[in-house]
């Protein structure tokens, strides 16, 4: 957020500031990403005060961002943030102290259940949710001591499943640890399966 605000500031492109005692450059990230995750597809809204071609906007903001950040494209908003329904992730983890077969069996045991209850902690308190209807996950592959899989998880205002929740469910069910977890978000969709824009 801060990195993006400052980059926009450096471009000197006219953008809208909030009004009031503490004016700030208004930015809205559609689906904020958790700390430590990577993403190939973040959407951020802000309001322009000048006419500027989208290609130029993308190029100038991209050039102002710190190394490692890039702009994929710029355009007028097509959908509402509230339409976000699902997000795709590529996830890797290791299961230290346990062999491949043992971990695979535990994983299968956890996620093949008809109901996958897990305790979800939010600002509003704790509740048990069933992950079953909210997730689709691919089979595990295994390489160099780490498992990899793809997951399509609920996202948006109705229900959001953070990838960390999968590992909470896994460890609680099997008693096995999950370590060295890396997560990359690869796409965000609305309910009809279209890419969110």
């Amino acid at each position, binding site marked *: 957020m801060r990195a993006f605000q400052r980059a926009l*500031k450096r471009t000197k492109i006219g953008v809208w500031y909030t009004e009031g005692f503490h004016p700030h450059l208004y930015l809205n990230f559609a689906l904020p990403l958790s700390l430590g995750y990577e993403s190939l597809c973040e959407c951020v809204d802000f309001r322009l005060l000048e006419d500027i071609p989208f290609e130029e906007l993308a190029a100038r903001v991209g050039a102002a961002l710190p190394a490692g950040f890039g702009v994929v494209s710029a355009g007028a908003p097509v959908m509402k943030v509230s339409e976000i329904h699902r997000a795709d992730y590529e996830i890797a983890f290791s299961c230290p102290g346990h062999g491949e077969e043992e971990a695979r069996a535990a994983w299968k045991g956890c996620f093949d259940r008809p109901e996958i209850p897990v305790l979800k902690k939010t600002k509003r308190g704790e509740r048990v949710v069933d992950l079953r209807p909210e997730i689709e996950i691919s089979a595990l592959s295994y390489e160099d001591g780490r498992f990899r899989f793809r997951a399509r998880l609920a996202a948006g205002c109705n229900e959001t499943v953070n990838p960390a929740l999968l590992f909470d469910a896994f460890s609680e069910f099997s008693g096995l640890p999950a370590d060295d977890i890396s997560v990359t978000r690869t796409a965000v969709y609305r309910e009809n399966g279209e890419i969110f824009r």
Partner: protein
Amino acid sequence: MAAIPEKIFRTVEKPARYTGGELNSVVKKKEDVKVRFAFCFPDLYEVGMSHLGMKILYSLLNKDEEVWCERVFAPDVDLEKQLRENGLPLFAIESRDSLADFDMIGFTLQYELCYTGVLNMLDLAGVPVRREDRKGLKNLVVAGGPCACNPEPMADFIDLFMPGEGEEVLPEIVALYKKAKDEAWTKEAYLARAARIPGVYIPSLYEVEYNEDGTIRGFSAKEGAPMPVKKRIIKDLDKVFFPENFVVPFIDIVHDRSMLEIMRGCVRGCRFCQAGFLYRPVREKTPETLCRNARGLCDSTGYEELSLTSLSTSDYSKLEPLLDDLLPWTEKEYVNIAVPSLRIDNFSESMLEKITKVRKSGLTFAAEAGTQRMRDVINKNVTEEDILGTCRRAFEGGYTSVKLYFMIGLPTETDEDVLGVIDTAQKVVDLYYSLKDRPKGKAVQVTCSVASFVPKPFTPFEFEPQDTMEELQRKQQLMLHRLHTHKISLDWHNARTSFIEAVFARGDRRLGKAVEWAWRHGCNLDGWDEHFKFDVWLRAFAENGLDPAFYANRRRPFDETLPWELMDYGVSKEFFIRENEKARSAATTPNCRQNCSGCGIAALKGGPCFE
């Protein structure tokens, strides 16, 4: 790179403290440089990254293509645990190479409680902490910062100190290092040659003798090393190097904004204030230079706040013209101007209006003491009228809260002076409710932040005993019992922390043993209350035959040789004695602009401070 596995960063809090990649951070190829310099700040990233001196010297060293300066901060306990458990070294942010890979390791010593942190950082990279155990030229450990004015407690660990201002001397010692590396000098040869650079103190070239009562008999210098060592100053501050950009962190840090140093030094001569004497003489930058620097910084960082820093910003003679130059564009670009360190006696309405144009920030004033007699003893030269007048203007300008700084434990202090702190705050509260134009329907909040006085070297109070911890704690309770309203909130420093600070501020070489013992027994990050281990410190002194009260609570006669007399900061001991005597009779000294008091700094400057 990649010596530190990525997964380590996923397991610690605020990984952006360590992962680097920030805008404007400098990455070079190590094959292309002659000298690798690790700029170490012995505290957490958020504190170190807020330090202007580090930003200046980082940019300055990296201007040289043959030098790569990187940043290293003290890891928080979670990362330290990970590093130690996995046998990984403390690393520099830019390259993630071990601190042990660096030619020169530089520490800035900003406060005494960071001393154990220095040892811990060296040890985390496997660099021996004692200077005599580092045999070669590589891993030369150098240090600067305000604590270099009395470097003796750290003399066992640091190879080379730079008392005074660093912008000139640091490139000089790095240039000499290049030559030494090219010609394969020994460490001893380098140090002997470096001792000839003005403003360089090499502890191994000095010996200290003691009297039977533990006081210092005298010093001797070897190999023609200078005695005393004169601090370095920048003669023309307006032309000194200033960075075009700052490294912009991803996470929130203590001072997350553009900072401009508008002047160095202070005209006031408050008798408790070490910075006021260490940074003499007063030198100002011109509004043109500052405006240009401000523009450059805001453009290159994207910061929306610009802070005008100095020891006493409202004493800058061209403050209003500077604000008039800055405001036209800062307002347009939503850049807020923050003016910290305002004096309570020259804060005008037009200034209040100017600094609240974009966003309103908090107002803090240093009253320092609760009675006029006490303020005269410390030469603060503000009156109760000043305090109330300024608060009135702030309240009329829409503020409903102010913060006031005070100290207790000052020389000659009585209980009446201590209670004066609360009484002064109460008068501010009463003032608010007496105003017709006060913001309607809002309660006032007066925050009193009360520090315990720590006598420091190179001040008129360098001879004074610190109040004992018991006495400071009694005075804190005294204030608490005087307090009858929630509209005043009172916070104070831990007296134990102030005691340890006092021991090291005026300590000598023998204290090195206590620093090392305390660190080996778990002391680190002592400036953080949750890590401060007072009982370990007490044992560290006892185990090494040292009496902390000898350093903290003892009055020094004027003719005693003090450990920091190895250094010459330009202000004479005779001046400090005169000021100490005036303090005893509550006589004030006018500020340097009104009348020169002959402190001695003009000789170092090579001319009078003011025309």
